[in-house]
């Protein structure tokens, strides 16, 4: 019985892994399949004779890719820092206190996500040009923070909610100040989750295209830079571009998997 169940679990896990990985494998094939590969029929599961670096090579030779990547990192880092700095305190307040206006706040931050950003582009662009944020990674980061903030606030609020208030109160009883109690008791428990939230903010910024391309001319972020040349290119270029956008995400999630794992670790102490 136990072995059967374990077998079922193992199959499920493997199947779900395949569900994620197989599509990525195929876009990789598409990216390296060259122009002829796109129309080949039937397609094989292995790289065939149409294998070619041409599309990828063209992409990597476009001037300014490195600068754009640098801009992306700056924008995403600022976005990450700001959304935690603004979102985590809000999340704490939402989790620990009940106060008039609480639901109003929740609605406000959700509204941000419920609104199609593109529609705001014009008024925002005008404001940004006036204050000198136009065509800077900082300007892009600010908009991205508006996108990431609801996630930061809501996720950290559910994190803090999950940390028993009694722990904190016990610390007060033992003479800790509010700040001390927060720093010594709550923060260590919440930190991995907050780290994951920060990563998420980074990824949101990294992948956002529309605002980034509207608000910049020279200082493009990588995604915006690639996508302006991508959207109307032939399919094999699009697959190559799609692949190039996915690779950093995979590497990135891989690099921070420790944090994702750490969130898990606590429960198993």
């Amino acid at each position, binding site marked *: 019985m136990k072995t059967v169940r374990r077998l079922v679990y193992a199959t499920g896990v493997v199947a779900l892994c395949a569900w994620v990985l197989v599509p990525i494998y195929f876009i990789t094939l598409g990216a390296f399949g060259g122009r002829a590969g796109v129309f080949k029929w039937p397609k094989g599961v292995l790289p065939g004779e149409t294998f070619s670096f041409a599309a990828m090579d063209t992409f990597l030779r476009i001037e300014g890719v490195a600068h754009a990547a640098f801009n992306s990192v700056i924008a995403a880092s600022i976005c990450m820092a700001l959304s935690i700095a*603004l979102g985590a305190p809000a999340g704490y*307040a939402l989790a620990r206190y009940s106060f008039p206006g609480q639901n109003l706040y929740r609605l406000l931050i959700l509204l941000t996500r419920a609104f199609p950003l593109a529609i705001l582009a014009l008024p925002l662009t005008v404001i940004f040009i006036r204050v000198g944020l136009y065509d800077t990674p900082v300007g892009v980061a600010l908009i991205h923070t508006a996108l990431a903030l609801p996630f930061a606030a809501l996720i950290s609020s559910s994190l803090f909610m999950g940390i028993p208030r009694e722990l904190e109160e016990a610390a007060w009883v033992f003479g800790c100040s509010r700040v001390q109690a927060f720093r010594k008791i709550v923060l260590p428990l919440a930190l991995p989750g907050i780290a994951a939230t920060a990563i998420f903010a980074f990824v949101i910024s990294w992948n956002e295209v529309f605002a980034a391309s509207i608000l910049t001319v020279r200082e493009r972020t990588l995604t915006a830079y690639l996508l302006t040349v991508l959207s109307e290119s032939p399919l094999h270029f699009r697959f190559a571009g799609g692949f190039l956008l996915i690779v950093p995400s995979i590497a990135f999630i891989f690099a921070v998997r420790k944090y994702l794992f750490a969130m898990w670790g606590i429960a198993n102490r």
Partner: protein
Amino acid sequence: MSGRSRFLPYLLLAPSVLFLAALFVVPLVETIAISFSDNGAPTLDHYRRMAGDLNFWPAVKNTFLLVVTVVPLQVAIALGMASMLQKLPRGRDLVLWIWTIPLGVSDLAAGLVWLALLQERGYLNSALAALGLIDGPTQWLTYETPGTLFVGILLAEVWRATAIVFIILVAGLQLIPKEYREAAEIFGASPWTTFRRITLPLLKPSLQTALILRTVLAFEVFAVVYAIAGRNFPVLVGEAYVWQRDNQAYGVAAAYAVLIVVISLAATVVYLRVLRSRTEERS
């Protein structure tokens, strides 16, 4: 409560409120104003044009259809994934990584991935042909095959956006003390009972967050649909884009935007009522 702590929550919220006010509320108010005015004169014309458009009702229908199928499916799958991860004796690190990869994939890239799979000469058809199920390239994504088109979009959305639900639920699960479950086990509860009686109720705050976020985001679905279906599957946000970019009618685009916000707000309020979390019950 002391006087100080009465103001504390507001103090904690203030920075984010100010930030959103500057970057979001002001342009939002301007947009709402645009949707109700024509050259300065108040009007409902934009809303009339929106509702009278041939794509309006299909877009409403498609968006809702997608939300009510995608969101429950994703929550169910994510719950399954989270519990599986919990039971996994080895390799959690690796599995967690793989399962969260789509989290980092932009919606445009995800659309491209699924287009590569599902297009007429794509990998899915190649596989089906190899198995002898179809004779040659078959079209799944046209206006003549709305059923398979919908399934294609559904698959892509589930692939792309389940990870966010998963990660929120894992974050919630890890906060449930292990002792609760151990106690249940000692009392002979079946895994299913433990899950239903212990895990689910304790997971409520996380579930609430995940549901609200996913629903709001699902109403905004656009890039994936666009990549896979083009014009064949109008959705609300897509229509807003078309009115703004192609038709250059900002008023109508603004009306769509306001409609989307109202719908998302309504959905949020429903969730907040149905899934009351602990602090709120206490108050």
